């Protein structure tokens, strides 16, 4: 649906055309965001995309801009535990909900440890999204089969081609998460 809207040639940021010509922030309600357990009250438009609010307002740059049309997955963050594409998610739609970014995993999460053991990243640009999609998958289903792994990760593109290692790291993370009590995770 989104892709259809953007299939026209030339600059096609249709949503941008509805950008207010006058500053509508005045008098507009503030947006409350709960990010990695911290509450932020922000003076931003409700239509602003979560990705740019995280990156530009909160300096959380782990989520990346890769395509802007929810195809590549580099902007993935978790909202109430589910992966969402922050590049097309309006902040107003996630106000008050629990948002987790890669920074919120703490660096020692079993999925991150598995990623390090398998030496997954090359350039690394897509890896925050890959890691978060895996966290969401394994929190929902501790023993996914290949079909479920593919379904969870096929929408996360990696131009360096680290896919074989991602698959191995998912399996390693499954083992680590079974061995790690939930409370000890980031």
């Amino acid at each position: 649906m989104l892709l259809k809207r953007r299939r026209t040639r030339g600059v096609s940021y249709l949503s941008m055309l509805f950008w207010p010509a006058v500053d509508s922030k005045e008098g507009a309600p503030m947006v409350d965001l709960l990010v990695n357990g911290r509450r932020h009250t922000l003076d931003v438009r409700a239509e602003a995309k979560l990705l740019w609010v995280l990156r530009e307002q909160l300096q959380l740059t782990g989520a990346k801009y890769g395509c802007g049309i929810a195809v590549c997955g580099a902007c993935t963050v978790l909202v109430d535990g589910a992966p969402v594409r922050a590049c097309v998610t309006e902040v107003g739609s996630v106000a008050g909900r629990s948002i987790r970014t890669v920074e919120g995993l703490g660096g020692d999460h079993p999925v991150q440890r598995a990623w390090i053991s398998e030496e997954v990243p090359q350039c690394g640009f897509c890896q925050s999204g890959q890691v978060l999609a895996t966290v969401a998958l394994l929190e929902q289903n501790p023993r996914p089969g290949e079909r479920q792994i593919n379904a969870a990760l096929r929408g996360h593109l990696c131009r360096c081609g680290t896919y074989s290692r991602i698959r191995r790291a998912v399996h390693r993370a499954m083992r680590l998460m079974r061995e790690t009590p939930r409370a000890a995770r980031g």
Partner: protein
Amino acid sequence: MRRVDRRTFLKTSAGAGGALVLGLVLPGCESDSEAAGSPVPLQRDSGADALAPNAFLRVEADGRVLVMIPSAEMGQGVFTSLAMLVAEELGADWSQVRAEHAPAHAAYANPTRKRQATGGSASVRGFFMPMRKAGAVARELLVSAAATRLQVPAAECRAEKGFVTHPPSGRRITFGALAGDAARLPVPTRVALKEPAEMRLLGRGAPRLDTPSKVDGSAVFGQDVHLPGLLIASVERSPRFGERVGQVDARAAIAIPGVHHVLPLEHGVAVVADGFEAAQAGRARLRIQWQASTNPAPDEAAAWQRLRAALDRSVPMRDDGDAAGALAQAAERLDAQYEVPFQAHACMEPPSCTAYVRADRCDLWVPTQVPEQARWLAATLTGLPEAHVHVHTPFLGGGFGRRLEDDFVAEAVTIARQVRAPVKLLWTREDDLRHDFYRPASVHRLSAGLTDSGAPIAWRHRVASPSIVARRFPEAVRDGRDKSAVEGAATLPYAIPNVHVGYALVDLGVPVGFWRSVAFSQNVFAVESFIDEVALAAGRDPYTFRHELLAARPRLQQVLDLAASRGDWGTPLPPGHGRGIAAAESFRSFVAQVAEVAVQDGRLRVLRVVCAIDCGFIVNPDTVVAQMEGSVAWALTATLKGAVTLQDGGIAQSNLHDFPLLAMDEMPDVEVHRVQSAETPGGVGEPGVPPLAPAITNAIAAATGRRVRRLPIGPGDLA
């Protein structure tokens, strides 16, 4: 240990930086606020408590070792492999080693390229000796300092795991505790390098230094650079190549809240705003009249017609014997034409550049493969001396040749000159796909002649394509002869007595650039497909046919044999399955691949790729594996997924929905087998790419009898 004359080291590592670079000593880390922002060379400070005997490394008083990496880390693992070279000779403890991008400076020129550029799979090749010598110089200084302190002969001391030890007495001192003393010693005149048997890191491997930061989100890419007061810029360019800005109506754009400036550039209009979204909103409201190009790009069909027509006026690039005569007399003659499309780089991170131009200095934070070129360009655009331009290199979210270009640097500096604030230029994915420097499209016409006993006696290969070198270094192309455009074709490795290779340069008005493995990516597809066709026409097995013709090329023959044996060549397969083989030398390395595919109901699955590589002496074995895996994914994307096509003077694709990339569930099993070798290191980043496409199409031919001669493979090619 082999003795190495220090003079060689001076020449190799210092380059135009001269003697100032070697023997420089940085101040201690606690007191170096001055030094931190300075470019090399730095001034000598004899009161130092850190040791920095050359431009490549510094041993801190706390024992940490900082290695300055002259190449760009874009995923290929160069932070780790180059730091390993230093750490090995130094005897460092790997857990204390850190890596940082070196600034832009001639001292960091890659010896194989004479400039600071990361490309051509040349980082380990170029820095194999200089980085090791840098580590060895520091080791000698630390050992001397320890010997003096312990009052023992230096010959009785060893540097290992971050200590200088004196085995006879069992005493040891940390590098950090010795750094200050070592910094005051004269740089040794001769240093010794380790023999392979003495090595602890090289050839064995070490954990990548950049992995943790790329997994916890703290790695800073170009897109992530942040400075106080930073503004965001975005540039609207013509959808058609070569057009210039005419009339601009910016009133609606400047009225957008958050938009600060609208700045016309030569080929686009920049919107400078508080943030990315405001900049995009401004762009969407610009009204721009474009001035037509003097060399507009043709549409897709016309482009292919021009390439095909050009084949008849190709100029000779290689002539062995008399290919035309031998073809005329051959008992059997084969002809085939192959076509390979334009391709985009589509690095996961679109181009970006942050620039801050002040009266007396310019700072760039730019993910680039050419920091020295960026510095020169910024100096030229600002009028500042090059020494006043400081290039800071964050991580590159992919490079693949795209960031050998400086177009986005020019834009950022031009914008920042007109704004009293640091400006981060961000390209959108649409900008990236529509304004890339594309891998050229090419047409290949091949002919071969066989004797009545099936021996190949003639080979003719004509290539028509736009020339990258003619665009980038026009003076290097005379009479339409671009040697780089026929790499992999003119370097035909097979023993055939009569060979002609010709090239026809065709300027299609499409910007072309270096794309992972460059012309090898197309020429090897044609060569390795056609040699397969010739083998089959001769009634021969494609592997043994190649093997026999490679008798004079033992390293290529060895990887061919290794791939065939590990790839189970010749063993039975289920119906609809097939194996294909291909091999090539590129960037001083030798790679062969066996691909196994299944074709069922017109649908292709690539099941397995067995890859054999001889890249000489291996520094970090896991990186070689990773680069082969990545090369397979890269080449498979171009083989299966898509292409860039011309339309209305620009390209038809606009984002990753219509320029699709390989996805995880399309990745085949990749097995990598490395030849143990003591030869000089070869390249690793690119050589895995060229054989993949022909290995796949050869496998399709084996499975179905259908020969694919045009990439990417379409559904109609299979059923």
